[in-house]
């Protein structure tokens, strides 16, 4: 326990720990200190000089953000000296800042505006020419108006420290100092959008959102991001039933206050090519119809079908309620065992949660001191987990070993090659990696879900688990065994048991049965990893989804469902944490919330002895879910897995090299694939990795 010191702020004593800054003391004393450059999650720059306060005995005002508080120090945040210092700084900041607030997208949520009103003067004495600065092209996500820049360097520090791309910096000096990329090109970061939030003025703003809304017109709904499986907390900002933008919400357990660009900039995909009404195939064409007609078409086909000839596959991005309702509809109402969520063909063992979730909470990755990645690129598969790993590598407290395709993870890794058979050797106590993991206090083993798609996926898990056990990564006080899922819906689907039982067909079996004409009715719910042509050939294909994709086009009946912003739903992230996302806007036109579709359909098609699905409200539905899995009774909490792991018998490791599993980071799901912004980002990313093609 650190020693406490007493600081007197405006005459009131406050206790702060030794090593706290003057600003900490002022915050403790509930005194607001205006600031621009200071940010809790970035290094201290002390350059904006807005946080100057008077400290008794100091010859001049001190920058409270970095000045260490001392025992007995007397701070005055209301004195004339302090006020005058703030006024001075404000005057200089505004001297060259353009007065273009009416056309600035930052207007209404601008630190400079707010602080100027509170601490500045009401008139300007600046009679010289204002400076103007050329704008920079830093890609399709961030719009720059560099004349507005106040050189706080938050963006530079974020890029360098957090995002790990040293592409942003200040060139020139004095009043000619400019923030930019030096070479004009798009930032190579999957987190670039966070600079928009960090920028205290309108220098860096959201390019796709430009000139579309004002912050005071927006309503904010708390959501959970579903572009990856991290479950980042987001705010869905909407106006008049339309999502206008997505911003992060603070959540120390997961995303701190960052989100990936896929989460922030994919909202335009929500309004593109949506399914707005049920469709029924008439000849070659899908024609719009109403719900009863669509249901009748399904009922007609089901009435003629035997349960063994009915099957369903679940996509990657379905909420827990929806997965549960779909599963209940298939297994209960239609009494078929042919249902599967593993369209990637992975051999995920869903019998125990530890075999498909992260054992280490994302936040606790910061306590890791040796990490082994197996077929996992956390930067693309779980950006928020990667940030934590970067933190520990950067502060020198952890080593990361990478067994898999070499990748730039923004921090130094020890590459072990891509031959997974090395896992056998790693289990040898004499191996240097084994020694490093064993020596570590909190070792971590991370298996990418992509490697489970391999034939030897189960063997990889077995070896990784044994290794974790051998190096003491599995203790009562520390769980260092992780399997990271890539898709937002997968953990919930596995929790809800969207899997074939012994007699049922797996996704791969369903695919081949369909193609061989052995299926009467195939339900395709959402977009998975299977190519569309592998889901053709059933007597009747029903597609339930949000967008008019190839899968929808080849179906016979199409039912329009709600996207993640259009329903209140539970999502389980890669850690297994169940979180609630709230409905921000209505589903488009005739589209319905997914679980309601299955509930309604069950009433239509269920045999009389079975009856409709046994829930009439979301509350009832959630009760059933909670009964099925305890995690769904504890929303927002992490329910640690307690059961002992029983490993299934597995095949041998084979010599095929581990491949990167994320090919197109910006186009991993149906929403991002429909987003023009994400498509542009992917195009730029492809050009970077394949420059020779561009030249050709």
């Amino acid at each position: 326990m650190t020693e406490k010191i007493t600081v007197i702020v405006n005459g009131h004593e406050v206790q702060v720990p030794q090593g706290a800054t003057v600003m900490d003391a002022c915050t403790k004393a509930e005194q607001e200190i205006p600031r621009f450059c200071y940010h809790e999650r970035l290094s201290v720059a002390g350059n904006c000089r807005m946080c100057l306060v008077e400290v008794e005995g100091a010859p001049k005002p001190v920058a409270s953000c970095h000045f260490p508080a001392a025992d007995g120090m007397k701070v005055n945040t209301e004195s004339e000296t302090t006020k005058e210092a703030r006024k001075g700084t404000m005057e200089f900041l505004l001297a060259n800042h353009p007065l273009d607030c009416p056309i600035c997208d930052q207007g209404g949520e601008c630190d400079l505006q707010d602080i100027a009103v509170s601490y500045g003067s009401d008139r300007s004495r600046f009679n010289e020419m204002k400076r103007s600065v050329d704008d920079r092209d830093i890609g399709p996500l961030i719009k720059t108006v560099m004349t507005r820049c106040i050189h706080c360097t938050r963006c530079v520090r974020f890029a360098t420290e957090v995002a790990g791309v040293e592409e942003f910096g200040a060139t020139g000096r004095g009043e000619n100092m400019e923030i930019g990329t030096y070479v004009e090109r798009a930032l190579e970061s999957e987190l670039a959008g966070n600079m928009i939030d960090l920028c205290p003025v309108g220098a860096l703003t959201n390019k796709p959102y430009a000139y579309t809304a004002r912050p005071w017109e927006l309503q904010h709904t708390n959501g959970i991001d579903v572009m990856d499986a991290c479950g980042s907390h987001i705010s869905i900002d909407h106006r008049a039933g339309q999502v206008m933008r997505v911003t992060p919400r603070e959540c120390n357990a997961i995303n701190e206050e960052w989100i990936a660009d896929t989460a922030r900039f994919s909202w335009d995909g929500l309004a593109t090519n949506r399914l707005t009404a049920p469709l029924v195939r008439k000849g070659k064409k899908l024609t719009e119809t109403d719900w009863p007609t669509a249901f009748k078409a399904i009922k007609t086909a089901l009435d003629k079908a035997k349960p063994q000839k009915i099957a369903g596959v679940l996509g990657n991005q379905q909420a827990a309620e929806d997965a549960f309702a779909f599963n209940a509809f298939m297994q209960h109402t239609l009494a078929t065992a042919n249902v599967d969520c593993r369209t990637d063909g992975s051999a995920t063992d869903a019998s125990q949660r530890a075999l498909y979730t992260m054992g280490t909470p994302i936040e606790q990755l910061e306590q890791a001191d040796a990490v082994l990645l197996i077929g996992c690129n956390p930067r693309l598969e779980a950006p928020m987990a990667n940030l934590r790993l970067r933190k520990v590598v950067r502060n020198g407290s952890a080593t990361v070993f990478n067994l898999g395709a070499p990748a730039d993870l923004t921090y130094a890794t020890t590459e072990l090659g891509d031959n997974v058979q090395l896992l056998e050797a790693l289990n040898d106590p004499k191996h240097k990696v084994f020694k490093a993991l064993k020596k570590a206090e909190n070792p971590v083993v991370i298996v990418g879900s992509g490697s489970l798609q391999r034939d030897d996926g189960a063997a990889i898990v077995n070896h990784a688990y044994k290794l974790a056990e051998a190096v003491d990564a599995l203790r009562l006080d520390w769980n260092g065994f992780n399997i990271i899922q890539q898709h937002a819906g997968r953990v919930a689907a596995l929790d809800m048991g969207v899997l074939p039982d012994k007699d049922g067909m797996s996704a791969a079996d369903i695919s081949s049965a369909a193609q061989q004409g052995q299926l009467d009715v195939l339900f395709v719910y959402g977009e998975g990893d299977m190519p569309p042509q592998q889901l053709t050939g059933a007597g009747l294909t029903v597609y339930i989804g949000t967008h008019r994709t190839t899968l929808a086009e080849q179906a016979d009946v199409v039912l329009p469902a709600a996207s993640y912003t259009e329903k209140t739903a539970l999502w389980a992230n890669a850690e297994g944490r169940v979180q609630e996302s709230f409905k921000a806007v209505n589903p488009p036109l005739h589209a319905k919330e997914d679980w309601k579709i299955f509930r309604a359909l069950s009433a239509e098609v269920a045999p009389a002895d079975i009856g409709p699905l046994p829930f009439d409200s979301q509350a009832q539905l959630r009760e059933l879910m909670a009964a099925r899995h305890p995690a769904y009774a504890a929303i927002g909490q992490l329910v640690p897995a307690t059961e002992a792991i029983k490993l299934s018998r597995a095949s041998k490791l084979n010599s095929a090299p581990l491949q990167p599993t994320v090919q197109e980071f910006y186009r991993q799901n149906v929403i991002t694939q429909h987003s023009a912004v994400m498509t542009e980002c992917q195009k730029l990313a492809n050009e970077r990795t394949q420059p020779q093609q561009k030249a050709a």
Partner: protein
Amino acid sequence: MPTPILKPEDKVFKNLDGADDWSIKGYKKRGGYKGLKKILKTDPADIIDTLKKSALRGRGGAGFPTGLKWSFMPRPDGKRPNYLVCNADEGEPGTCKDRDILRFDPHTLVEGMIVGCHTLGAETGYIYVRGEYYDESSRLQQALDEAYEAGLLGKNIESTGVNVDVYLHLGAGAYICGEETALLESLEGKKGQPRLKPPFPAGYGLYGCPTTVNNVETIAQVPAILKNGLDWWTRWGRENNHGTKIFSISGAVNKPCNVEAPMSIPLKELIETYADGVIGGWDNLAAIIPGGSSTPMLNPEQAGEVLMDFDGLRELGTGLGTAAVVVMNKEVDVLAVMTRISGFYKHESCGQCTPCREGVGWVYRLMSRLAEGEGSKEELDQLFNLTKRIEGRTICAFADGAMWPVQGTLKHFRDEFERRLSA
């Protein structure tokens, strides 16, 4: 009683005029490196004690007691090395003393580095030379090479067990890199911008290790103090301002020069003895900048009485700075000169913190306008108010140095501004 003119044997920089051989041969002939072995066998604590008693104060401008500064350095703990860094980024307008040391008497600095490293427990020293001093740095490098060849640098110097390596680093032309923490950043290969203090370099300096940064002249004077003794050193100058000092005299004088003279010499005597007086006579004097461009100017009346040392000038609201005396007589447009100096600071601000980045340019533009008679008398008050809003609000002392000359001009030449504004 006139201040004595230093005899050759009393000078620390015996070849400051470059008349003699600069090389190790010449330096040894002048008594250099004699007694070095004895110093290297002396306990560092005793050396620091002597320096404290000598009242040697930093020659780079701030005048901080060197012995005290050196006493802040922790003894090496075996985990982090200690460093001595020599600040040869001489950029203060009007100052050219270090340049003559580097090119005419470089071994005084080399010997100082050896003694300094020994005293501070550093095995590595860096000399950061301003980029424009290319020829001078070549000369210094030759001197370092000579010292290595003579076994005065490297391992086990003079069989005393002391190891010292000295590296020369050339800057890239930024005034701000003369600020010690900006210098360290630049030396580390980063953009030369001052660091936040605390922590101070003695605790967290170059590469995060304990570091002392000193001016060329300061480091070069240390061996002389140790060899010649405190009696010799304290013979010169007043209490707390002892020793000899190089004065760079330029501007409206008959014979601009660099000269080593005793501290606390009256300014008038300094100019008349060594620079052949003001052009047009003392009565033709308009103003004098006593210690480089960032020190506020003196009016003729003050200049006639002031003693050239740290305390004497501080009493008059200015400072000894680098002891670069810039003389302006009545033929000089003082406002134009001071505006130009303000322009220099606008050009050299690093741009890191707000008041300096935005304010120094504003002050320069406003002052340019007012010096040309455009504007109002109220704007004179505004100009002064602006300088006060910049001074003392920044990370480093650059902004203070940029504002003092403006404040000095307003203090002594406000009537000239007003005359031009009402003309």
